[in-house]
């Protein structure tokens, strides 16, 4: 039987705003399947985003949804989760939203290891504002504000998350659609701050400036550069040149923030 996405979509809120060929919708379907797999109660699930095309995702989801300001999703979500730890909190947003203007909130959410899942839809560009370069845009790429090629080096978002203290970090692509829900489901079930970076596409503002002739070509590019972590173990550095690793990249157990704060409450009450 076909999967019933409608169960999780807000009645009357489709069609979505995304362009034909945009990768964001594929990630949303993956998220929905993950929510279904884990069996989250939508009444007790908050989906929090910033600003951007990716950040429009929560509006379509039949949950407690919070479309915040540009870059601020992680900080709003931290307030929700701290005040009501029994809620499941999922963050979504673009690469620009999360790692430029929201970079500070992002790394501190990782450091606290607060039990939330952050899905970063990395299309390597500021889509909503028309294709300016983001901290994830490859060096040399063309964006509306890098007409001579991007001089900036790019962040490796997964590495950034690991370095900042996230305790579960995974990466997938919109080409590998069937893997997305599995990565997100595992991230939700992990106790701590989990980050799932999904490389996807913005054909409208990135593809056309960077000589991708079609969405299919962009998807094929994602297929070509993705190497599962297991497979990568057997490959030489030369073979891995220009590739990106996919799958669960990092996982560790570390005290989770709201549980640690529950201990603070116990200590404060005992000292009263």
């Amino acid at each position, binding site marked *: 039987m076909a999967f019933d996405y409608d169960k999780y979509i807000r009645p009357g809120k489709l069609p979505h705003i995304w362009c034909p060929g945009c990768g964001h919708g594929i990630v949303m379907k993956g998220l929905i399947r993950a929510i279904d797999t884990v069996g989250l109660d939508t009444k007790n699930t908050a989906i929090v985003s910033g600003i951007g095309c990716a950040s429009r995702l929560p509006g379509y989801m039949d949950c407690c949804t919070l*479309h915040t300001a540009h870059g601020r999703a992680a*900080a*709003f979500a*931290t*307030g*929700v989760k701290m*005040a009501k730890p029994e809620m499941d909190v999922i963050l979504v947003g673009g690469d620009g939203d999360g790692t430029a203007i929201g970079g500070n*909130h992002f790394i501190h959410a990782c450091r606290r290891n607060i039990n939330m899942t952050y899905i970063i839809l990395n299309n390597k560009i500021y889509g909503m504002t028309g294709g300016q370069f983001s901290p994830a845009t490859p060096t040399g790429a063309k964006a509306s504000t890098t007409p001579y090629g991007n001089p900036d080096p790019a962040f490796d978002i997964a590495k950034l998350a690991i370095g900042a203290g996230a305790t579960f970090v995974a990466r997938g692509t919109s080409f590998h659609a069937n893997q997305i829900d599995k990565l997100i489901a595992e991230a939700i079930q992990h106790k701590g701050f989990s980050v799932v970076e999904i490389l996807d596409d913005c054909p409208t503002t990135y593809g056309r400036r960077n000589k991708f002739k079609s969405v299919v070509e962009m998807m094929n590019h994602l297929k070509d550069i993705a190497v599962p972590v297991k497979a990568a173990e057997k490959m030489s550095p030369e073979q891995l040149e220009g590739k990106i690793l996919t799958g669960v990249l990092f996982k560790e157990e570390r005290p989770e923030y709201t549980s640690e704060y529950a201990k603070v409450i116990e*200590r404060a*009450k005992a000292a009263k």
Partner: protein
Amino acid sequence: MAKKVAFLQGNEAAAQGALYAGCKFFAGYPITPSTEVAEVMSAELPKIGGKFIQMEDEIGAMAAILGASLTGTKVLTSTSGPGLSLKQELIGYGCIAEIPCVIFNVMRGGPSTGMPTGPSQSDVMCAKWGTHGDHPAICLVPASVQETYEEMVRAFNLAEKYRTPVMVMPDEIVAHMRERIVFPEQGELEVINRTAPTVPPEQYKPYDTSFGDVPPLAAYGSGYKYHVTGLNKMQDGFPTTKAEIVQAEEERQIRKVEANKADIMKWEEYLVDDAEIVVVAYGSTSRSARFAVNEARKNGVKAGLFRLQTFWPFPEERLLELSKKVKAFITPEMNLGMCHGVVKGCIEGNAPVLGIFRVDGEPINPGQIVDKMKEVK
């Protein structure tokens, strides 16, 4: 039973007032001269099962309290000048999304890092005009430790009642001085909680104006699933650019405060009835002004004090009325003429307004005000 009495600092009283009002969540970032509020909250909140979090910056702190408030929790952040500037982005979010919260801001010298330990009153315009776009503004300006406590309780009440951010802004002198305070007993001061929806979840709309200008707000996780955004929105919380809806919604947000001014505004008139010279003052400056008025009266000068307890909304109508019978107003303040300009703007030129402005980190002393009275012809 005798009431509990203490010798308390303004900032400590602010924290205690917040707790009395039912505050259960605090997010902040350290900054002089307001840090004591965070320190007290970090110690007191966990004792009652509340939550304290020190965020990575003031933007994050503002975001965290807004998120926490949506779970049905009463929330507070505290800061000072540079932090207030950072919070402005999300104060606007709180206004448009209509999320109750209290922002405690101790006024120190500015702009920028300015004078971190010097008193000032130069954030009062920032309280109204700091965030972009049209939006409601409520700003309370206490003048004593006792009043800081009580106005904090009132600030929470106003935030909950009108579903909007409320600012409490003492100057550094009020925030750092120590005075006797008599704690109100439980039940003595009114404590208001936001209105929760009575309709079933399927019918709930977060901005349903059929319930009036202040629609009920459901808590996340209480069975109600709804959408919140910083975009101009419709009654169901979803974005719209429909001209008539945007216009009506923006006007309603302002009206929530404007139509309820009588409930929100507070001021004290001291010897104003027969006064020829009225000193309009607030915060610690009003204490010098009261002293000056008493001195002037001893010398037969008919002086009075109009003490603002709320800066926004501003009591324009009452000052206009007074302007028809006084010889002059005097506005002493620790800035370069902020209240001065507002007073001038509402009295239609009926009387001169003489300003005393200090931004040198020193308080305005009564002698300066008495001297200024001599200039009134």
